[in-house]
């Protein structure tokens, strides 16, 4: 059955390319060819996470796509907590056709339970612009994050980069420079503290910011990617390796020296970020969404600039290593109109649409070439870092092993509260990993 459809789709595509078909009046020079050819009809329901980037771009794409396919009725809806709505629909077997469930949906459980459609066939078909396959249009480092056993279930859209932020205006005024190494960081923090500003603040209520901003990047810097990969792969002893212990000690050192803002351990993300934009703290670890998340409350004189976490001098790791993250899109197996969902997403990930998203939302995208343009100022350092990065990785552990992640986060909070030594902290991390290793009901994955 599937085979017939594929054959039909390919022949329809072939006919359209050979035949007439650019619709009259399509003004844009890089209008993707062949996207009008497929016969899509019926309803297409898209449900998306409504976060810092809103829904408008998806709605616009849906509308444009609907215009190209007059027999198709496209509906795009979303919510800040959309995963709560989607869960019962998935259980009931009535999910939407294309979904972006957001950061709190257990997508790996969905894969395990066979709720998601493998998309390799669709990926091997031509990209929206007809040049090369759809698969080739994605950055391979990012695409591989959505695969299990070689099958692709999750597709990336925007790419989040993780690093630290500082205010270049404030730094220049004081003659400071963003630290490249940990040694520089220590000296800088002392100077900042003397000025009565908290050197570093952080999102204490959400310890994963610290894990992704300090702990794991530092472990990677000290012990190379193997240290982090082993930890993510649940290799016994990996979570209390020398690299991880040293990284934890560094965080503890910052804490003991008073370089971490007092009270940050209890702050939410918006609270600590507000401290940063109001100049009460000089640096903060955060992902690329920081500027748009804090848009409403950033004073007009404040500026923010991205930089990679300072590396450890003499460490084994590649200093250009960069941490990224994706919030994937997917097609449920029970979708009523999966082909339409796939085609809409193919359209959304076409180069012009991707570039449009970069421009309007100030975020990098997973589509190759989408950053070849005059980037918004805030994206320049991120794009440069990503281009220069010889090693790119993602903290998939957090999505794979939620129970262990919670233990590790709790232990980090306790260490930041001064209740655990770094050694005790890594011991707890290792214990959490061991518990997960032993639990046969938790599926195990390997970093690709």
């Amino acid at each position, binding site marked *: 059955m599937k085979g017939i459809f594929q054959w039909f789709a390919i022949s329809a595509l072939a006919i359209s390319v050979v035949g007439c078909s650019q619709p009259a009046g399509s003004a844009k020079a890089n209008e993707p060819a062949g996207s009008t050819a497929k016969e899509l009809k019926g309803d297409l329901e898209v449900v998306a996470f409504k*976060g*810092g980037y809103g829904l408008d771009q998806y709605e616009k794409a849906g509308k444009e796509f609907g215009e190209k396919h007059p027999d198709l009725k496209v509906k795009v809806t979303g*919510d*800040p*907590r959309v995963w*709560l*709505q989607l*869960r*019962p629909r998935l*259980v*009931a077997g009535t999910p939407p056709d294309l979904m972006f469930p957001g950061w709190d949906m257990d997508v790996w459980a969905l894969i395990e339970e066979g709720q998601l459609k493998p998309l390799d066939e669709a990926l091997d078909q031509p990209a929206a612009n007809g040049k090369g396959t759809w698969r080739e249009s994605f950055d391979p480092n990012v695409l591989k994050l959505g695969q299990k056993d070689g099958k692709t279930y999750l597709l990336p859209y925007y790419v989040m980069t993780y690093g630290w932020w500082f205010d270049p205006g404030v730094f220049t005024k004081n003659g400071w420079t963003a630290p490249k190494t940990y040694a520089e960081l220590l000296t800088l923090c002392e100077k900042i503290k003397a000025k009565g500003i908290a050197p570093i603040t952080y999102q204490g209520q959400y310890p994963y910011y610290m894990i992704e901003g300090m702990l794991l990047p530092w472990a990677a810097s000290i012990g190379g990617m193997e240290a982090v990969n082993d930890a993510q792969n649940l290799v016994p002893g990996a979570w209390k390796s020398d690299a991880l212990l040293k990284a934890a000690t560094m965080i503890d050192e910052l804490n003991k020296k008073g370089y971490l803002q007092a009270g940050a351990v209890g702050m*939410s*993300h*918006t*609270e600590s970020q*507000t401290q940063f934009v109001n100049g009460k703290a000089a640096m903060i670890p955060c992902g690329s969404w920081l500027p748009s*998340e*804090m848009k*409403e*409350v950033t004073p007009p004189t404040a500026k923010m600039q991205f930089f990679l976490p300072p590396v450890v001098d003499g460490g084994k790791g590649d200093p250009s290593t960069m941490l990224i993250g994706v919030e994937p899109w997917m097609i449920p197996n029970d979708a009523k109109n999966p082909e339409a969902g796939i085609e809409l997403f193919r359209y959304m990930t076409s180069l012009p649409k991707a570039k449009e998203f970069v421009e309007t939302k100030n975020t990098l995208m997973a589509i190759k070439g989408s950053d070849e343009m005059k980037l918004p100022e805030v994206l320049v350092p991120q794009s440069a870092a990503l281009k220069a990065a010889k090693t790119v990785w993602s903290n998939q552990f957090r999505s794979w092993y939620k129970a262990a992640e919670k233990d590790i986060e709790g232990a980090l909070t306790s260490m930041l509260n001064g209740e655990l030594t770094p050694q005790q902290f890594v011991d707890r991390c290792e214990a959490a990993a061991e518990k997960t290793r032993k639990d046969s009901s938790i599926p195990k994955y390997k970093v690709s």
Partner: protein
Amino acid sequence: MKGFIRGFFLVLAVLPLVWVLYSSLKPGVDILGSPWSFPTSFRWQNYGKAWTEAGIGSAFGNSLIVTIGTLAILMPISAMAAYVLARYKFHGNRLIFTAFLGGMMFPHFLIIVPLFLLLRDWHSLDTLHGLILVYVAYSLSFTIFVLSGFFESLPDELAQAAMLDGCSDAATFWRVMLPLAKPGLLVTAIFDAIGLWNEYSLALVLLPGADHRTLPLGIANLTMTQQYQADWGALFAGLVISMAPVMAVYWIFKDRIYEAMLAGSIK
């Protein structure tokens, strides 16, 4: 001396709420920045923002629909059941009564998952009518318990007189006994309403979407949604909006509530 101590407790009970009230008129930054300060100008936009942008307005409407809808079903069927259980002897009376009573004993969380699935099977998840049905079911225990106490205390002679006049059991209930139990019905309804208005846990799980949020969910969402956690002003305005109707009802009926609680509490 005692007056001072009373004043102390009064302030303790009321001050936080008074503080919420005047803080709701300050810009969010000031609430965190200078918590005790009185607003210099009244920022009514906080209320507008809470009502429209944060969805408190629609949450208010949903809570209204749910509360009134639940009471409309709950009161009649509870009164009927309580009347029969209180005044008629029959096999199974004790059993049914104890079963209803038992419902007050266990936490809603115990059955949250089966309930979730049940509503899903009835295609009533994320619907107001689904929530209303659940609320009715879970308010039955308390309502029947209290109403049966009231019905038990009504004098027999009136019922007997009505029956002698040729009224059926049902007619006696509707025409004679129910009107007599009005104070009990009123107080139970008010208590139920206050509980329903403020219910959070069940609504959280059974109304997963954004369309049908009730007020407690709307307020909680205000604290959790990224954009608004920095906007304390709108949050506090939302709090005031959600508390206002309950406070109004409470203040009007407080004496009757007090009397009823005294009567019902000594068991």
